[in-house]
């Protein structure tokens, strides 16, 4: 079976459903207003997306209580959430569900799937899928102690999957954030729509989910990095669309600015970049759904190496072509820019992914 880079009808239906909910419930001005409030995340929206559309446990196999779809479908959801810079605990959920799937654990899948129990994974958000795994958390007498920085969606998480090293090796544990011995310190994020924080564990109660955390973490990071590429495509597409719309309405020198070739050519190049990003992102999602492990790793590295930079370019071009209004707080471009730039650092920078590609396809350095 060769790689399918298109969208299936089922995927398009899923996209429409997600887009409809986001159009009604996640207007960008409300996202902006929410950023400055005490509740930067919209958990009611998340419960709708999870409970009614099933996006949270979408890619978890049915035998574990999930939706039984693949990463291809999950990636389509990510595109839509990226278009809307939706402030929901999506990425943490992707990490957690991919980890639970890799571990073969059905443990809190039902609640995650319903959107009632937010779960994330305690890995630093900048960790690349191929990075060495050496958790800072220790298992001591059955409880966990240690600190993990840059844990995504931590503020709203009810449970955290924690890789921790003890006498029996590195296992994956689950911790309830309401328990004593669990401390959470939020960090003020560059990306106002995606929150993270520091997890401090001091003798926290934990339950073992997987005896060997390493393959589980690798798979979770790889899946999340592939899904992130799709989110980046959605963000880039929105940046392009909204900019095209703007240059059609803004007049300078007696003409629509979209009639100037200097502007048209930049947007044409951006469109080409988005088309290319879409192909690489589809390739990654397809490889994660059905391909072999080596192919999936290369496809994700390629997707991240391309889509991360392209999303930043799209947001930056969008800001530039909006002129002065693009520099204001009230215009939402900065939300997209913050998301794009942060996503570029997330799960490894493009440079890290290129280095991984060099290993995978035998193009050694000096």
């Amino acid at each position, binding site marked *: 079976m060769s790689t399918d*880079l298109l969208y299936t009808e089922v995927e398009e239906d899923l996209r429409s459903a997600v887009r409809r909910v986001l159009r009604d419930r996640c207007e960008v001005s409300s996202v902006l207003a929410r950023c400055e409030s005490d509740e930067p995340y919209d958990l009611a929206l998340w419960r709708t997306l999870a409970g009614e559309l099933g996006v949270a446990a979408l890619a978890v196999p049915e035998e574990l209580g999930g939706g039984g779809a693949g990463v291809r479908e999950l990636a389509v959801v990510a595109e839509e959430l990226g278009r809307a810079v939706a402030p929901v605990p999506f990425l943490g959920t992707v990490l957690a569900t991919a980890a639970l799937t890799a571990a073969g654990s059905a443990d809190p899948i039902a609640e995650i799937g319903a959107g009632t129990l937010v779960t994330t994974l305690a890995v630093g958000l900048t960790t690349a899928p191929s990075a060495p795994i050496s958790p800072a958390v220790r298992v001591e007498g059955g409880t966990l102690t240690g600190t993990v920085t840059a844990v995504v969606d931590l503020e709203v998480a009810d449970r955290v999957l924690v890789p921790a090293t003890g006498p029996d090796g590195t296992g994956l544990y689950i911790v309830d954030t309401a328990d004593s011995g669990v401390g959470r310190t939020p960090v003020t994020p560059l990306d106002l729509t995606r929150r993270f924080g520091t997890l401090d564990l001091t003798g926290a109660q934990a339950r073992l989910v997987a005896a060997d955390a390493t393959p589980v973490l690798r798979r979770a990071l790889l899946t999340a990095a592939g899904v992130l590429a799709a989110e980046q495509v959605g963000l880039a597409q929105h940046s392009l669309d909204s900019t095209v719309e703007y240059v059609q309405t803004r007049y300078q020198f007696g003409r629509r600015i979209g*009639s100037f070739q200097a502007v048209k*050519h930049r947007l044409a190049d951006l469109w*080409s970049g988005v*088309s*290319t990003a*879409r192909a690489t992102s589809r390739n990654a999602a397809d490889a994660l759904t059905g391909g072999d492990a080596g192919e999936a790793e290369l496809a994700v590295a390629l997707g991240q190496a391309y889509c991360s930079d392209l999303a930043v370019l799209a947001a930056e071009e969008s800001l530039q072509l909006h002129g002065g209004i693009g520099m204001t707080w009230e215009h939402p471009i900065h939300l997209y820019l913050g998301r794009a730039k942060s996503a570029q650092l997330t799960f490894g920078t493009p440079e890290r992914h290129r280095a991984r590609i060099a290993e995978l396809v*035998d193009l050694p350095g000096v």
Partner: protein
Amino acid sequence: MTDAAELRAAVRDFLAEHDPGGDRLEFLRARFDAGLAWVNYPAGLGGRDAPRELQTVVDAEFAAAGAPDNAPSRNGIGLGMAAPTILRFGTDEQRARYLRPLWTGEEIWCQLFSEPGAGSDLAALATRAVRDGDDWVVEGQKVWTSFAHKAKWAILVARSDPDAPKHKGLSYFVCDMTDPNVEVRPLRQITGEAEFNEVFLNGVRIPDSQRLGEIGQGWQVAMGTLMNERVAIGGGNTGRESGMIGVVAREWRDDPEVRTPGAHDRLLRLWVEAEATRLTGQRLRQQLAVGTPGPEGSAVKLAFSRLNQEISGFELELLGEQGLSYEDWTQRRPETVDFTGRDPGYRYLRAKGNSIEGGTSEVLRNVIAERVLGLPPEIRTDKDVPWKELPR
């Protein structure tokens, strides 16, 4: 509806009756007559009205049997541009006359579109076609004509009405390249080779029966032809590291001496872009296969041009002293453009044409901006003015 299994069976039946090791031309003619040439063409014209993507099934079956192919690279203009145009705009007589020897390669085709004064602005062309009884008399100069020195036929756009605005006064013809009033001169390029030609049409008489489409409809016919050209450019299923990036990647692996930290990152960036562009082309073909052609062809061509130029320049830098030399400046007439089979210096120089031929990158950006993104068209001062009054 024809499916893959039916086609495989048809090829097997055909091979049982025709020896793939026998006379090449006879084999190809028989393959055409059996409707196994281009399966999406109509029955009787080399095809069987099957979906276009099933062609790969047929080609693979013939290749597996060791059968000769019709050397598509020797007649790229014929197969990629002339044939679909004849199919769409030709009369029954024209289709019956031209398509079979075109497909078998017995008759090579070229195209007479561009002129010294009309490249990107093709509709400005000045070659005149004047009606004289049942004939047209054609006078003018064309340029950048590949295959002209081998061609039996050309597709030709000429101005049949200078009083009409430039897009409306054109007509489209099939021109006999062996006519003594057609003069083909090699055009030497920066590579030293004469891959293309200049063609002088010195009062060539073309019977009206060799007109394709209506008088004055030449622009629409030409646009159909050029659409097919873009599809052809986006075509061809290629594997990882095909093309220029493969050449440089192999050099990198084979010779540790060329490796530096800066070059490593440049190589990896180019590798990523090449692979991403390849996947974009693959996605485009998948869209075509399900009948929803996307405009990605323009994006692929833009990216391909830029990459080929960057990678071929990077290669010379990697090679150091060897990059200073050039294989051979002799004026030659190459059959095809083959980057991977040629020398680094040639690759560098030839790649410069990629962003000009088949639509300049600047024009392609306008096409994307206007047709895909819906941005305002360029301001046109020439649209409704009679062609003869336009400044030239």
